[in-house]
């Protein structure tokens, strides 16, 4: 247990020291949030609703990104630099190492969520009930699982450049077409249909429903769980194939 705590702590320290993480997961979303709720006039019908909606979009955007990129790219780096090999020789078991990375990431996400929520609340004076804040945070935390699984898939890639390139493109495509940057309603019909099948849309929609005073739809949960299982199975399958080779 002491080993696990120590491992988690070190994982967290490592992420926080990563300048890319701080920029992409904290600075960018808050900056975007400020711009699209205060600088650019989007003329929403319900100002307060839009501000809460967009704060959730940006938090989802942040957590989705660090799930996919931070973990995946680091896995590739550690393997290429031989650190993973060294770890295999230590008594720390693979599963504890992996679990610590997951827990570490989740703590980081909790941290990002808190920071962005506070920043949003301060910037626009958002009035949500305590329950809504907590439920939103929880949804974003748990909903990140399929994206962490995408991260482990990216972590199986052979080169850091490929991993970084692929995860970046995937991240942006998922964010834009999932309606995280701008509401789906203003996008063409085709895009709206496509979004119905994307994990990023369902990730966002769950929390948009919450701040609207409702609850996530069953479809949101179902799709995210399906994607999680799919990516985990795929990741396991590829890992096994790589081991045999």
């Amino acid at each position: 247990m002491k080993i696990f705590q120590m491992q988690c702590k070190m994982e967290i320290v490592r992420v926080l020291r990563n300048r890319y993480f701080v920029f992409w997961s904290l600075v960018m979303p808050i900056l975007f949030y400020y711009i699209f709720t205060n600088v650019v006039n989007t003329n929403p019908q319900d100002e307060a609703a839009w501000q809460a909606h967009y704060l959730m979009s940006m938090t989802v955007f942040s957590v989705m990104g660090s799930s996919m990129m931070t973990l995946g790219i680091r896995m590739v780096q550690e393997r290429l630099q031989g650190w993973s090999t060294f770890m295999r020789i230590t008594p720390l078991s693979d599963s504890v190492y992996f679990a610590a990375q997951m827990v570490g990431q989740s703590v980081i996400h909790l941290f990002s969520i808190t920071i962005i929520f506070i920043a949003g609340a301060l910037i626009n004076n958002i009035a949500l009930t305590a329950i809504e804040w907590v439920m939103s945070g929880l949804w974003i935390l748990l909903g990140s699982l399929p994206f962490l699984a995408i991260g482990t898939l990216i972590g199986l890639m052979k080169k850091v450049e490929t991993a970084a390139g692929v995860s970046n493109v995937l991240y942006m495509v998922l964010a834009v077409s999932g309606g995280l940057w701008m509401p789906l309603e203003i996008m063409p019909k085709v895009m709206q249909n496509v979004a119905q099948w994307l994990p990023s849309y369902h990730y966002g929609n769950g929390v948009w429903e919450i701040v609207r005073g409702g609850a996530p739809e069953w479809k949101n949960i179902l799709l995210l769980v399906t994607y999680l299982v799919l990516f985990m199975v795929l990741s396991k399958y590829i890992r096994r194939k790589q081991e045999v080779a």
Partner: protein
Amino acid sequence: MNEVLTLKNVTKSFHQKTAVDDISFTIGKGEVVAILGPNGAGKTTTISMILGLFKPSAGEVRIFNHLPQEKQVREKIGTMLQEVSVMPGLKVQEILELIRSYYPHPLPMSELISLTGLTGEELKTRAEKLSGGQKRRLSFALALAGNPELIIFDEPTVGMDISSRSRFWQTVDSFAAQGKTIIFSTHYLQEADDVADRILLFKDGTIVADGTPAQIKSQIAKPSVSFIVDPETSLEKLYLHTEIDDIYRKNNRVYVQSSNTDRVLELIFQEKLAVRDIQIERGKLEEVYEELTRGTKEAV
């Protein structure tokens, strides 16, 4: 003998290529063993199997009577791999603390710090910012973090200058003196001869000699009697004696190879050969090594 490591008929093939071919040996507690061989001889592959990183294609590896992958084995071994790597994002001191925490009976932090030879300021820098030499010393300290009973190094001194090399071996000596078992690979014969009390000589994935440096000399480095002789003189008669293994000329001298040099001298006098400047040479390990490793394919 207290067995620490046993390899039984171990083979490792990569696709068509056989990197290690049916090797067997046992190493006992407290031995300092050099795995000596040129590039591509199969040293790293053998060490990877010992560490449980590769599965043997055939045969079995046992450490302390267990499989290499088992946790109780991992708690008792420490290693420095050929490719040195550090964990990015953590400070030197943090990495040392982290790795220490994995083991039931780690070395004290102060001892590890002195093994790295890093100053207080350097201990607070991120590991990825260290120089190559500093990283190597850090990884040396990491190898010893768990106070291992069996220490395995793959080509530990490659890239070290003479003074770091001798400091490295001094430290290793002090661990050997505590009764720890040490296995290291090298392609420097001198190093194996100086440091190890046993050499496993590898060539093309097989062990061509196994013993103390002295035994290896007597096993394969045959002593010879050499002399200068008029080229006209016939040496036919010597060829008739079965004690003589080989006769060849090199740099104006004739070399008569035999494990019984006294007998060769006797024969020379008996046959009244007109030779001068007779010398007896014990086989030199360098020559044996060169001989054995000549024609070895270079590693890719």
